[in-house]
């Protein structure tokens, strides 16, 4: 069994050779809850990040955060702080840390860790061993958050 898995893994690796620099969820290094290095080595796309933020099956950040920039979406949750001006409050490394695994920044938070693929209990089969977002989606969301300035 191990062998088969290993084989599949190797195939996946070669197939995505373009993303060779992608940092695996378990390999992300945090300093005081922040992550300096880009997870992909490529710039995030804020337009994509905006979609991921709203999409219920992806970030679904709107479930918990209001965001004036997404006024066209009808339901904004209020479990966490509003996202307006978030880039005035946090820098890129901090935002990357918060999106990757907010528990490193806010102890005991309800906010899910978006780039963690193990350590949670009883996942539904379809999600086992997977992170909620891909490395590229995290970078896209971070790039989008950096556009949310009020000052």
């Amino acid at each position, binding site marked *: 069994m191990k062998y088969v898995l290993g084989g599949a893994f190797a195939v996946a690796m070669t197939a995505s050779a373009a993303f060779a620099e992608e940092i695996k969820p378990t390999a992300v290094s945090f300093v005081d809850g922040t992550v300096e290095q880009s997870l992909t080595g490529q710039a995030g796309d804020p337009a994509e990040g905006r979609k991921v933020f709203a999409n219920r099956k992806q970030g679904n950040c709107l479930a918990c955060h209001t965001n004036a920039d997404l006024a066209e979406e009808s339901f904004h949750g209020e479990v966490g702080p509003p996202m307006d001006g978030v880039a005035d409050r946090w820098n890129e490394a901090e935002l990357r840390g918060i999106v990757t695994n907010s528990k490193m920044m806010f102890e005991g938070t309800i906010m899910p860790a978006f780039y963690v693929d193990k350590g*949670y209990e009883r996942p539904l089969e379809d999600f086992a061993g997977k992170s*909620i977002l891909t490395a590229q989606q995290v970078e896209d969301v971070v790039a989008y958050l950096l556009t949310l300035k009020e000052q």
Partner: protein
Amino acid sequence: MNLKPWIAVLVAGVAGAASAQDSNTLSIDGEPMVTEVAAPAHVENLDTIYSGWRFRSAETQALETDDFDNPAFVFVDQGIDLFDKVDGTENKACSSCHENVEDFAGLRTQLPRVQDGELVTMENLINDCRTERMGAEPWKWSKGPMTAMTALIGLQSRGMPMNVTIDGEAAPFWEQGKELYYTRVGQLDMSCSNCHEDNYGVMIRADHLSQGQINGFPTYRLKNAKLNSIHGRFKGCMKNIRATPFAEGGDEFKALELYLASRGEGLSVETPSVRN
């Protein structure tokens, strides 16, 4: 208390908009219901407990105030028919032995309870009669006949305060339920308490979070236009956080049901309630 600065800002900014639950009072066909009461001592992190009714929109609330408007009563009527229906090898109906369904008044408030060392729910008691006394097939936990019958029997306790036993033989089951309530599960890694204790009263996307009380079950949900069992609801909440649900009727959900029933101590039974 973990005070959230942005909630404070919201409260100050738009007076009233961020208040947890509304101040409406519920009477059903003129009979007043308790939808708010001081939290019992064993609910450590809440001062006051509220029925889920207090978090629903005015339109949804209105449906529960009158049995003619309450869409759940179509199913209660099915329950009445089933109560008189002969089934199984013994050629008996419920009413062959239980002359009057009103004799079940008070039962809903005390379930689940420990019986012969096992934690039993309303569904267990009904299916025990079907399999052992009627020679009939057990009903599926959350399917139509069962929820119709739990609604009919639960209705006989409407207006009475929830009051399960949690000490003595029940204690280990209650502890297990409490543990489950506070354990994070699923890819989203959340516990029931993260939503229903820490964040009740706020919006999570389109939903106004309640305390996740079970005093109104089975509930008619506008979302699926049918009666929903307690365990069915637990299952739905677990799937939403991408967790593999425990089995309906299994030990975990029965323990969780006991724990949640105890968190609602003093609230009126509202069966069958209406939710969205």
